[in-house]
């Protein structure tokens, strides 16, 4: 009898599907917990602070006062809005890395409206800003989509490059609109008259953008889950060949979805300018376009999960900012912590998708 020359590997992987929801949730929570422990150690190693104290400082930094809560909510809503915009594109497996640029062009046209059209009645001005910012974002998304649909041009790199075109465009307008002259910033637009600013509701201007984002979240949920368009998007995402076989026009679905995706990202720019900073600069998007990709992906394009993950990241950012200012360190610590947490959540997906089979000890039938 031939002797077995190769041993069975110690660990073998098999794919699994259909894990119960509570187990998925459990795995994700464990990974989050582990990430927090690791981050605690990292913070301890750098600052020498007690990790428990660090986390309580973070909570008070993010939710300690009314202003802080609103600023955390503002950050969360921005991130969520971009993620909601990206969700349909990514569900279609269209790698829209260009949210950063789409947000910026939305912001540019909003700032333009606030500067040149401030004489218009507020309702008209708001509707106009809403429409043009969405249109600008959609245009920025349309270009790569058309080339993808027609010539199968790589959209990951196309959208990435569009970001930098948008950043330079922003620099151009910043130099054009700078105020005061020579400062190389636009300054707060309409500081005194506050035309084109979101009106404060319940003591904060964030309230309105938060509402818009929540409405968008619900609409996107319904769109992806219960409409024909949403179904087409998921078929194209699963397999383009299947989609073609089923008679779906892949090119048209790509273009239509990117128009929508870009438009929502453009709206995020509208909210960032009219609803939050009232100015425009190259950091208006501030890397959120990239972070939102991870938010959308981890949430599996589910609106509720996107809001939750955005909240987590916004909390980290405000919290780490608080620690940084307390310890006189810089606030980039939040990006570091965010990175670590993302690694853990990304890694945890493995245990949801795969099953580890250990080599059985003792004798076994072949």
């Amino acid at each position, binding site marked *: 009898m031939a002797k077995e020359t190769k041993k069975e590997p110690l660990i073998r*992987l098999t794919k699994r599907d259909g894990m119960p929801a509570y187990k998925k949730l459990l795995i994700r929570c464990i990974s989050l917990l582990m990430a927090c422990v690791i981050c605690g150690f990292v913070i301890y190693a750098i600052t020498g602070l007690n990790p428990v104290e660090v986390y309580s400082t973070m909570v008070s930094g993010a939710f300690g006062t009314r202003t802080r809560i609103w600023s955390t909510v503002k950050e969360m809503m921005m991130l969520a809005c971009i993620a909601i915009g990206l969700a349909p594109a990514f569900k279609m497996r269209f790698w829209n890395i260009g949210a950063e640029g789409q947000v910026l062009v939305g912001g540019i046209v909003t700032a333009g409206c606030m500067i040149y059209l401030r004489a218009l009645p507020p309702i008209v001005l708001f509707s106009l800003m809403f429409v043009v910012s969405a249109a600008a974002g959609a245009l920025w998304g349309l270009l790569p989509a058309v080339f993808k649909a027609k010539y199968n041009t790589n959209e990951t790199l196309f959208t990435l490059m*569009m970001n930098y075109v948008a950043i330079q465009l922003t620099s*151009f307008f910043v130099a054009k609109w700078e105020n005061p002259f020579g400062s190389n910033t636009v300054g707060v637009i309409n500081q005194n008259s506050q035309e084109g600013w979101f009106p404060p509701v319940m003591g904060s201007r964030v309230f309105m953008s938060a509402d818009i984002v929540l409405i968008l979240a619900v609409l996107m949920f319904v769109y992806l889950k219960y409409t024909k368009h949403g179904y087409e998007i998921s078929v194209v995402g699963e397999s383009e060949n299947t989609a073609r076989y089923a008679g779906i026009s892949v090119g048209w679905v790509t273009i239509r979805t990117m128009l929508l995706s870009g438009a929502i990202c453009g709206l995020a720019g509208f909210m960032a300018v009219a609803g939050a900073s009232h100015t425009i600069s190259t950091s208006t998007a501030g*890397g959120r376009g990239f972070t939102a990709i991870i938010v959308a992906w981890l949430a599996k394009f589910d609106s509720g999960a996107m809001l939750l993950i955005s909240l987590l990241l916004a909390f980290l950012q405000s919290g780490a900012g608080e620690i940084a200012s307390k310890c006189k*360190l810089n606030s980039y610590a939040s990006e*570091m912590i965010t990175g670590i947490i*993302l690694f853990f959540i990304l890694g945890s997906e*493995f245990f949801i998708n795969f099953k580890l089979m250990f080599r059985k000890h003792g004798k076994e039938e072949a």
Partner: protein
Amino acid sequence: MQGFISLFQAAVFFGTVIMFGCIGEIITEKAGNLNLGVPGIMYLGGISSLAAVFIYEGSTDTPSSAVCVLLALLASFAGASFGGLIYAFLTITLRANQNVTGLALSIFGSGVANFFGGSLNTLAGRFEQISVPVTSAAFRQNIAPLANMGIIGKLFFSYGFMVYLAVILAIVTQLFMQHTMTGLNLRTVGENPQAADAAGINVTAHKYLAICIGAGICGFGGVYYVMDYIKGTWANDGSIEKLGWLSVALVIFATWKAKNAIWGAYLFGVLYWMYLYIPGLTRASQEIFKMLPYVVTIVVLVFTSLTNSREKQPPAALGQSYFREER
């Protein structure tokens, strides 16, 4: 003439940073992994070298420049490959999505680097702007007798050693990919991992090594930027990030061939700095000119997809994780 020389030099400085990033990313992509973490990896490479040298220069009164250079290169390679290792573990072993993992790595790397870059002094109990004069001088030392040879000297010999290292690395990478067995195996892994696996090539090992070595080379871009380009200090202005993304773009521009990265990198440098040499531009219209490298990349991207030539395509299995039992 003076203008031409300074544009040429600026282009070489700029090009060298992205050439390192591009070579590293070509090696990574040839193994079938699209690593969007290049900016983060460059950040990690830059900060590791800066931190190591900062500690070393602070610890002795007479730092030796040879040790400084060696330490900077080793530290950056270690730091950058560590970033690559995280990415490799997540995408190869845990089969996470490559694009998303790469972006997370970019966030992580920029966070780590800017955090330490901004707080190294505070942590070390010193308060002046961070600087490593000895190392920076060693990195910027040109080829002394040749550099004084008039125009030729200025154009070709007035740079620090890393400029030449980048070109040599590009050529070596090209030869390695095209003319060695290991290079062929690596390309097979990127084109068709199933076939490679069936032929007895260890897919996982090839991918891991390619990603870590590629990341280490990307990290040299960070070192060059920190030590030579901005002369041994730290700037929290996001420039490395921009350069990192341009390196990714350059990979496409070079159509996945390291030899094309050489002239491509310098061309990007020329396009980037051209606005300084065009008379009559206002500060606003300069910004429009700075779009050029990105616009050119888009045009190249569109053209390569239009021509659809087999020579100019990305590795066929780029971006897909390999699972042996998948059909």
